[in-house]
């Protein structure tokens, strides 16, 4: 024997972006704080919470290009000819574009426009090694987090090279195909990501630099790369003003940020708390994550303990026992419970409640449709007082023009007019609702516009048909489902 079947609630496809756990995660940043930074020859250190510079270094004569923190938080900076607060490394003949600390924290790697890569010793500020293998500007580099001797540089000569401080030469070289703007090593050191041109390429270092995947999701040069704190997501910023988030398992785009200007640099703070983007218009955008602790602060209602639910369920059957199972009770929504007992007016009242009509109008419409199917819609709508009927009318007026609800609601509206026509003029509130000429006019105008558009499209198709007979069918095939989507 089948039980009561709940009313089928019509679901409608949600247009636009699909909501996934990634979009929820990455959308959870507060609106950005934008700073106008003219960072030509200064370095600011911003506080984590105050959003104000807490330290400024401005002792450079020339433009400062890059800075990096050592893992223990001590700060070191250098410039081709500037005075360093702690150490100053001199040796590059042109602009230095990349520096990084090696894994043992005692050395610094730098790459410069003079095509060289140098390794420096911090304690005595001496140059240890120089590599002159690149044939163009060295614009990016990074040191391995695991091996103190390994580091990687990317250059405008389209290559990414891996150097070993123990051998004096590069141990690996991969051809990116475009001038390399940014390189990144995965924490495990096994995968290398390089960005240049419109491509982001991932290389498998353990297989001797085999290309794993090539991503082409930006339509302008990719300028910067960044890994999320968990290592599960890769971020890339580009001149096309977008930051894209990739899954590092499937290398598919899972989210995308839009910014006001072309992006030059990008960084994520610890635990993805802050995302900082530097743009060509001199603005630094800082977004903080909303703290998730807030949600927990709402006092939770005390629920029955777990054991109350499993009480008696885990009883093991003894030898002579006869086990009688009570069938599991199916949860029914309140309106379903009313419909099950044929309390039709009550069910309708329930779904005409503002909390339901505003949040889930499709439930209200589905119930009206169900009542109509049962042939009792007129009974449910009849016998209402001024307040109740105004609820119904407000709902109808608001949703009548929506194409997905229209067939059901027009039918309901006709029934209401039939029932309440004799008593019209007794209540000003209801009379006002009945006078819906404005809505109708708007709808008529809208329909006329649609028809005009359709006519124009038909004309276009007709002219195309004259040119080539076969292509017409394909166009109709494209156009028709879209039309359907708009209507539904």
């Amino acid at each position, binding site marked *: 024997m*089948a*039980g009561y*079947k709940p009313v089928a609630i019509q679901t409608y496809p949600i247009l636009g972006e699909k909501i996934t756990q990634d979009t929820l995660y990455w959308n959870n940043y507060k609106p950005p704080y934008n700073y106008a930074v003219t960072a030509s020859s200064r370095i600011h250190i911003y506080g984590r919470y105050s959003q104000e510079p807490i330290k400024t270094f401005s002792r450079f004569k020339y433009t400062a290009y890059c800075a990096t923190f050592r893992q223990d938080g001590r700060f070191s900076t250098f410039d081709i000819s500037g005075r360093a607060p702690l150490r100053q490394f001199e040796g590059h003949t042109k602009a230095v574009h990349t520096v990084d600390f090696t894994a043992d924290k005692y050395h610094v790697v730098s790459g410069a426009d003079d095509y060289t890569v140098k390794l420096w010793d911090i304690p005595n500020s001496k140059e240890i090694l120089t590599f002159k293998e690149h044939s163009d500007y060295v614009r990016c580099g990074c040191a391995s987090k695991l091996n103190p001797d390994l580091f990687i540089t990317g250059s405008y000569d389209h290559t990414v090279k891996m150097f070993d401080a123990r051998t004096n030469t590069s141990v690996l070289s991969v051809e990116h195909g475009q001038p390399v703007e940014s390189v990144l090593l995965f924490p495990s050191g096994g995968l290398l990501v390089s960005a240049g041109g419109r491509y982001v390429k991932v290389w498998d270092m353990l297989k001797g630099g085999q290309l794993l995947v090539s991503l082409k999701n930006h339509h302008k040069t990719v300028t910067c790369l960044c890994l999320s704190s968990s290592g599960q997501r890769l971020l890339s910023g580009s001149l096309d003003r977008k930051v894209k988030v990739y899954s590092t398992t499937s290398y598919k785009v899972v989210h995308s940020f839009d910014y006001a200007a072309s992006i030059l640099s990008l960084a994520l703070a610890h635990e993805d708390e802050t995302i900082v983007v530097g743009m060509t218009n001199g603005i630094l955008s800082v977004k903080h994550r909303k703290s998730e602790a807030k949600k927990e602060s709402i006092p939770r209602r005390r629920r029955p303990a777990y054991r109350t639910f499993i009480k008696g369920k885990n009883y093991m059957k003894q030898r002579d026992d006869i086990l009688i199972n009570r069938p599991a009770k199916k949860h029914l929504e309140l309106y379903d419970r009313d*419909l099950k007992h044929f309390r039709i007016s009550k069910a309708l009242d329930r779904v005409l409640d503002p909390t339901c009509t505003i949040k889930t109008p499709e439930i209200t419409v589905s119930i009206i449709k169900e009542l109509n*199917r*049962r042939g009792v819609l007129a009974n449910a709508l009849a016998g209402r007082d001024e307040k109740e009927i105004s609820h119904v009318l407000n709902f109808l007026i608001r949703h009548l023009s929506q194409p997905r609800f229209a067939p059901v609601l027009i039918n309901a509206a006709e029934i209401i007019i039939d029932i309440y026509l004799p008593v019209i003029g007794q209540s000003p509130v209801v009379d006002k609702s009945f006078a819906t000429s404005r809505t109708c006019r708007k709808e008529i105008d809208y329909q006329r516009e649609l028809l005009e558009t359709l006519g124009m499209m038909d004309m276009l198709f007709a002219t195309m048909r004259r040119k080539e007979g076969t292509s017409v*069918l394909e166009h109709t*095939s494209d156009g028709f*489902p879209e039309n359907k989507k708009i209507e*539904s």
Partner: protein
Amino acid sequence: MVDEETIRVVRCGGSELNFRRAVFSADSKYIFCVSGDFVKVYSTVTEECVHILHGHRNLVTGIQLNPNNHLQLYSCSLDGTIKLWDYIDGILIKTFIVGCKLHALFTVAQAEDSVFAIVNKEKPDIFQLVSVKLPKSSSQEVEAKELSFVLDYINQSPKCIAFGNEGVYVAAVREFYLSVYFFKKKTTSRFTLSSSRNKKHAKNNFTCVACHPTEDCIASGHMDGKIRLWRNFYDDKKYTYTCLHWHHDMVMDLAFSVTGTSLLSGGCESVLVEWRDATEKNKEFLPRLGATIEHISVSPAGDLFCTSHSDNKIIIIHRNLEASAVIQGLVKDRSIFTGLMIDPRTKALVLNGKPGHLQFYSLQSDKQLYNLDIIQQEYINDYGLIQIELTKAAFGCFGNWLATVEQRQEKETELELQMKLWMYNKKTQGFILNTKINMPHEDCITALCFCNAEKSEQPTLVTASKDGYFKVWILTDDSDIYKKAVGWTCDFVGSYHKYQATNCCFSEDGSLLAVSFEEIVTIWDSVTWELKCTFCQRAGKIRHLCFGRLTCSKYLLGATENGILCCWNLLSCALEWNAKLNVRVMEPDPNSENIAAISQSSVGSDLFVFKPSEPRPLYIQKGISREEVQWGVFVPRDVPESFTSEAYQWLNRSQFYFLTKSQVTAPLKKAEESLPTTPFYFILGKHRQHQDEKLNETLENELVQLPLTENIPAVSELLHTPAHVLPSAAFLCSMFVNSLLLSKETKSAKEIPEDVDMEEEKESEDSDEENDFIEKVQDTNNTGLGEDIIHQLSKSEEKELRKFRKIDYSWIAAL
């Protein structure tokens, strides 16, 4: 012998189980119900059919237990006979020939040698209750012509007659009056509902009647849902009645429990109501029985009830109102929209079932396998309501996909249309909803077909609609990094000059799609969706369309409404042949090139089987049915037959089933018709009969043989020897199986060792040793090999052997 083969139509299953009240056996172990020309015996516990009582040559109209012997059952039929059965063994004991159509049967314990029956003698719609005296005679067939008249002008239905208070009176109801006949006084009292002329009481008609088993109390059910309990009806003036009212519509049946303490009633609400102590307050309900309750019966032991429902189902219910078993036949109380289909997986017949369901029906076992809920909405049964109808269904991709279309049209402009696509889930062994498409077309969908080509990489579905478009739906990958999913989307929309699309069909290899737009057939390339060519015969709208198969795949067949069958050649794009034939059903055989067409004429329906390559039909059978044939389908055979005659070769791989416009919806007409009322027929060669005979012969052989093998001492020994002293089963098995073959060798083998054994037994009488199991086996091996080995042994060895002969295992050799 081959030339003698003829093809005949065989009615096949799907018979009504709910035609009359079911009857319980005295011990409640079995339940009997009429089913077409047969009586079926079901077990109340396992729901399985135990026996089918064959014998009547027309519809069985009533069954009753023999009150004098509870192991016997009376049945009456429209063929004018009453038969007495032994239901435990399924044997016909006696036939009483009455000679006129019998419409119902009643037995009363007090009337020892007579039964009561409803007959109509003179006019077709005047029915009489008569008492039939059953003469005592030892012969198989007895004439029982001694009829004594009891009541006249009664209702035909047995629900309107009830015998009360141990056969003291009989109550009959008809329209607005209740008449009670007292057997002792031989008088009739008649009670008319006084307000029957009133408009308010216009629905006061009696529908059924039941009598209290011990008290003088009659319960009657009425059209308006009321139940009246009549008392004091001995007096025409002082009679009283009380009303019980719960049903909102007609009371379909009433039954008192065995002790009479409670009254059961049911109606179209599909709720069984138990009225305790005949009061309005004390009532219990068993709701959600699925369909209108048509009959209620109570077991003589009082522990079970059963309800027969309009959807051809019998539910057995415990005394405490708990349903315990369901016997479900083919559901066919509604019109069939989907046509007949064969599920490629289960080979079950699939068609409309309960409201909103597809039923899967096994043709072999005449049993419903399961119901698939398509519409998934609460079914509200109310007069005049427009229900959602399941209009189209199709299987695709070897049963992996099922497409269904449901629609509800309240007014001309308000059409609700929904297409659902179901995927077969191997884990749950059932169909799971995958995609739901709202309003796939603007107007009714006229045809639905899957591309069933073997090498198609992407499942494709085509729908044709009255709105002038046909749409191609394809399965697309809808998965992302979070989950894997597939879904159906529209791939292409085609139309042809805004004509209504009426039919669609894929060619066997899936490369071409044919869509008919009213009079015109268009051929589309299924890769690029380009229009390839059009055929137009100007012979009316195309009603059926199908491609030829296998060697005839270059032909396309179309049947038009003006009665012309056309065959086009797809290579030359020209009409190959046409024939004048008013085709109602056209079905291609999935296993061969053959196509079956059923044409309709004023006389009846004719069957034509032909190959598209030649206009001359392979086989013609005139008048397969007097009624209009609605649907047909080829069902592949499990085991291919081998008809040698050319005319019957089309039945080698498949059987053809068809469904006629059933008369089940008009019960009056059905009773008059002598046609088999069940709508399924299938065509089989007479060959089958021969085979049956052969089978019977072989069965007889076995029967002869069986006592023989039982008489063999060896077998009885084998069966009676304790298992732990027997040789291993592997050793015995081949010998035992060989013994059952009954070949000449085994017979000789049996005879020879027996002689030997006799000798040996004589010799070994005095030996009294314990036996070793392994040695025993060797020993039996020896005897099995033959007697000469033993004879060759020396005397000392013989003595050794005799030690093992304490228990004689020589019977093994006899196997």
